[in-house]
């Protein structure tokens, strides 16, 4: 997993509430057995018409946002299916950070496993960032995970807070599984205890 320390990039405004993971990456792209290559189908049914032509109204098709690395989104981003293809598609497109008033739990969790930083901010802050994002490529937002600060294009700073363990893993690009495997004796101890206490499991 790539580290996430500091990111300065274009933020795309997506004010729609309840953007679900079916919308982020529709089912027909879940048939892959790889993690990579999903970026071209990110938001597929919003981004392209039925013939596969780009929909010029969709934000990521507009010249200013084609290289967006941050999304400012409406409430409850990532709801629905647990598909990790959603963060894979975002990452493959180049998005490393999503800012919203709230996220669905599974999507939120999946982001951290892929080096994407989901940031929860109060409505009034998201409103400011959304407004800033509408300035297009002229508005480059800086996200600093070390300091836990988002800075707008005109220098306004907003602090945020990330769970310390998750922040540590993102800052250092750490793989959870390796960390957990170091606890193998504790896991085996628990299993031995359970073999007596709840043998039917």
């Amino acid at each position: 997993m790539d580290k996430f320390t500091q990111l300065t990039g274009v933020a795309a405004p997506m004010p729609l509430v309840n953007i679900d993971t079916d919308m982020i990456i529709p089912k027909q792209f879940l048939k892959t057995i790889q993690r990579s290559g999903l970026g071209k189908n990110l938001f597929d049914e919003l981004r392209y018409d039925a013939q596969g032509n780009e929909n010029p109204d969709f934000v990521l098709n507009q010249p200013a946002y084609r290289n967006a690395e941050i999304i400012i989104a409406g409430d409850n981003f990532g709801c629905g299916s647990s598909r990790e293809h959603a963060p894979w598609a975002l990452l493959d497109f180049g998005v490393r950070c999503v800012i919203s008033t709230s996220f669905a739990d599974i999507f939120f969790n999946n982001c951290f496993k892929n080096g994407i930083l989901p940031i929860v901010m109060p409505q009034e802050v998201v409103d400011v960032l959304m407004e800033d994002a509408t300035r297009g490529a002229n508005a480059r937002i800086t996200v600093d995970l070390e300091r836990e600060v988002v800075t707008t294009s005109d220098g306004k700073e907003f602090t945020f807070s990330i769970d310390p363990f998750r922040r540590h893993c993102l800052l250092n690009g750490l793989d959870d599984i390796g960390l957990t495997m170091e606890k193998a004796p504790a896991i085996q101890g628990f299993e031995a205890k359970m073999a007596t206490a709840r043998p039917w499991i």
Partner: protein
Amino acid sequence: MTAPHTPRTLYDKIWDDHVIQQDADGTCLLYIDRHLVHEVTSPQAFEGLRMTGRKVHAPDKTIAVPDHNVPTTTGRETHIENEEGRIQVAALDTNARASGVHYYPIDDIRQGIVHIVGPEQGWTLPGMTVVCGDSHTATHGAFGALAHGIGTSEVEHVLATQTLIQKKSKNMKVEITGSLPPGVTAKDITLTVIGLTGTAGGNGHVIEYCGQAIRELSMEGRMTVCNMAIEGGARAGLVAPDETTFAYCKGRPNAPKGEQWDAAVAYWKTLFSDEGAHYDKVVTIRAEDIAPVVTWGTSPEDVLPITGVVPEPASFAGGKVAAAQRSLDYMGLTAGTKLDEIAINTVFIGSCTNGRIEDLRAAAEVLRGRKVKDGIRAMVVPGSGLVRAQAEAEGIAQVFLDAGFEWRLAGCSMCLGMNDDQLSPGDRCAATSNRNFEGRQGRGGRTHLMSPAMAAAAAVTGRLTDVRELVREAV
């Protein structure tokens, strides 16, 4: 962990019994008792194990079954037309066999939707932690098991270690007091709750469903309720186990037997929320206030009684105004239209929400002696090969066939349209599944969620219909 002697909720108890280690900031290493695996969210996880030289830690606690991609037509054992789907099903087959996990391949009568197979085979039992790379893992909470969906990275984590790194969620109580009126089902309960709390209302929470109406539900009904906890934002739903639960589990192939059964039941009887236990949020609904409901929009929170009308977007608040307008545009509906005047052209009965035997019985009850209206495509997809066999033995399959339904093989099918069972643009479907998102059942397809009895009623009349009109005699 909760301090000793503090009253604990059901969630607290199951959580406490699975914590291996807890860090100072509350991050826990949680033991996982059952890991269910399907073909869509597991190939990258198995590939990850291979690349790092890791092995499946507990194959005997891991259960694999293909469900999302599988065709529901005959001949699928030997050939799957869609190449990518075929590769995914084949990858699961290879991975499952190589790792020695319990496996129900496509030609096994026990194959079916993972959330139907787990309980049916007795893998899901009270007090367990159950995970699967699928958000509808919440279903298993019906047994008083802590069950939730995970992403593929976590699938790999569980395969490698049989644990998850977790922080405890908040706890929400949803109480349904009194008894359900006739014609109102578990699906109406769960949709009504989401309509009230919203799709983000349960974010960060585990829901415990309780109250008389929940106690009076069968296990099938409880699974329907818990299945959609995720649609309300809660990763997990829970129902405390009771005699109904024990009766369902007893005799299942992988349920404990003899002395172990007795020991298990004794433990399961301790799994209830103590008097005075703390909940972060409480919602109470009177069962008598619940009506047969349908969804009108593209979010599961867009729920109204079938006797209602399509709402005005302006009647909502905040970001929901634009979302509601977008929903109506997508759904091709006009505010003020009576819901029971909306014509449909497709009916889908099945899914992990409503693909169990009781669901098929409820639909067949409405269909007996009736026909699907001309021009309507109606299909029923049993949740597992065993549900299908049971429905055939009970004569229910014949009722569907006589009415004009297609009688399919088991799988996820048109709930998400990963196989060939999809809506075409503009199709309008009465569906017993769980998501009415844009494009969910097929690009441009329009989904109305409802109970199996309501879907059957819609098949007969060709429009969204109050099932109580068709079964008035019985009601």
